[in-house]
């Protein structure tokens, strides 16, 4: 039986897409356009004038200060990515190939995930009793006689920011990699063992190439989270470390919308470019399908 369909299929598709298109246009594209326009406007301490002013862009593209800010951001991205990728791979590999039962695997994954049931501010504050001057780590180091006075760089420092990032972002890295590893049939690993491959050779020649999409997705998580974050930097460095995103927040708080807008556009372009490169690395659509 064929149902008579008076609406052409092209129109039907357009109607189906319409709600999402509407939301995307009004909530994403229009505000982005607005930000782009504002970045070219003049401003004073409280207002934005509808007059062309290229100072904000000049500042973003030429000043040494902005370049330092971006350098700091990229440094964080690189270090956090390297550490979370290594940690994430080791933990994911253990969970996927050395833990035999699904129950134990899920239990172990849960222990990693449970700290994230608390809110961000609570987690940020809870680092103090561990890393602070009077914290557990310093007490232990002094108690063991390794240091004579408390280490000051454990908390409210770049180191503390990195620790918090790694803690936050190792989990998505693990989940993405475990997911990819779970898709490797056990027989493929056994076939490699039959061929005489050592554990290290299996990791290098079989597992790493096959989990590339998982690594790419995990990397996107890490890159976008670190580049878009101002909260952790502020909390963990006590305001002593400045990044490009922190600068945007500071300017917003000071009602300096045009330079904040210009920096935001630059940030967006960089993140989109990075994601674009990562997507070339792995067929993510295929990864999400199954």
């Amino acid at each position, binding site marked *: 039986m064929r149902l008579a369909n008076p609406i052409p299929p092209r129109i039907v598709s357009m109607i189906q897409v319409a709600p999402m298109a509407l939301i995307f246009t009004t909530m994403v594209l229009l505000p982005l356009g607005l930000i782009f326009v504002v970045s070219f406007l003049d401003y004073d301490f409280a207002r934005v004038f509808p007059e062309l002013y290229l100072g904000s862009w000049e500042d973003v593209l030429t000043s040494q200060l902005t370049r330092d800010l971006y350098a700091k951001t990229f440094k964080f991205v690189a270090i956090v990515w390297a550490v979370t990728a290594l940690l994430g791979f080791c933990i994911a590999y253990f969970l996927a190939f050395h833990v035999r039962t699904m129950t134990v695997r899920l239990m172990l994954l849960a222990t990693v995930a449970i700290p994230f049931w608390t809110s961000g501010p609570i987690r940020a504050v809870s680092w103090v009793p561990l890393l602070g001057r009077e914290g557990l780590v310093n007490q232990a180091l002094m108690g063991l006689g390794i240091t004579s006075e408390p280490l000051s760089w454990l908390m409210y420092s770049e180191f503390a920011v990195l620790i918090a990032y790694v803690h936050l972002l190792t989990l998505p890295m693990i989940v993405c990699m475990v997911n990819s590893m779970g898709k490797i049939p056990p*027989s*493929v690993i*056994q*076939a490699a*063992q*039959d*061929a*005489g491959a050592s554990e290290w050779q299996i990791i290098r*020649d079989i597992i790493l190439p*096959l989990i590339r999409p998982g690594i790419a997705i995990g990397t996107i998580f890490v890159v976008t989270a670190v580049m878009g974050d101002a909260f952790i930097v502020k909390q963990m460095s006590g305001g002593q470390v400045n990044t490009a995103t922190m600068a945007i927040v500071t300017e917003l708080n000071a009602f300096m919308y045009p330079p904040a807008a210009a920096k935001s556009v630059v940030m967006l372009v960089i993140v989109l470019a990075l994601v674009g490169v990562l997507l070339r690395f792995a067929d993510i659509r295929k990864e999400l399908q199954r």
Partner: protein
Amino acid sequence: MNLALKQDPAEISPKAPKLQQATMGHRFDAELVAVTKRYGPGAPAVDDISLRIPRGSYCCLLGPSGCGKSTTLRMLAGHEDVTEGAILIHGTEITNKPPVERGTSMMFQDYALFPHLSALDNVAFSLKVRGVAKEERRNQAREYLELVQMDHLAERLPNQLSGGQQQRVALARSLITRPKVLLLDEPLSALDPFLRIRMRAELKRIQKELGISFIHVTHSQDEALALADLIVVMNDAVIMQAAPAREVFETPANAFVARFLGGHNVIRSEGREVSVRADQCRLGRMPGMRALEGVIGMIEYQGTQVRITITKDDEDYTVLMDAPTYFAQSPEIGEPGVMSWEASDEHVLG
């Protein structure tokens, strides 16, 4: 159950293979000695089985799913620990050795090709991990791809190959390790019927050419009968019968073997349980022959033969008759039917 040990190995040895093994001086390519596999409390998956596979045999492990045949194969491969007992390959004990030190190679049911490597690099993988130079290993891999007639598609990735082609690559990848025994886990079950018959001829050809033993797990009796020098029928974790194909078919050891192989009627005759081949049974009462009366339940035309099912007391009995005889008699479904057979065709079951 040590039926296999009573077997005279000389009887089942195939004709001298063309390519002889490097290692001589052993009588059996593979031996299982009282091997048991338990996964936990309860019935074992494999229960105290012993089996000897003579040199250069094509051996089929045949049985219904869950009978322990795949577990047995995986224990041979070293992918499953042996709970009790010992496994020998070429007379050397390898029970607890890792897969690569056993001299076995496994061809997996899902082929297990490395999806990111070309057919050629899949085959060359075992040479790569041994540190053979690129040019050298690719040349060798190409030879094995030629053996399985896949050299023209050497650069393709596995997902660009059909099921049958992937299987040939998997076979080449297993053979390049020069195994003493090749293990095949339901190798033909994913292929369509036409390809399955072609591929099984191919397997037999390659086995004869290399002269090594193949141990092939299957649940298809046709496949086992067509391929095997030695058929090992398994059920409920034990070996029911291990013998050459003809012996298994003509003199099944028990009712299970007779029923599982098909083409047999299991009948109570003179107070004993006997099997009679369906093609030796006739329709209609014959003078001097034993008979059984029932109702004709089903008629299947199969081209050269017609398969007639006679139902009596909820049991089905089968008569295979040739087409001309069938059309001469032209029985109808629902009519009373008599199946008769010669007393001399009865085979007493254990």
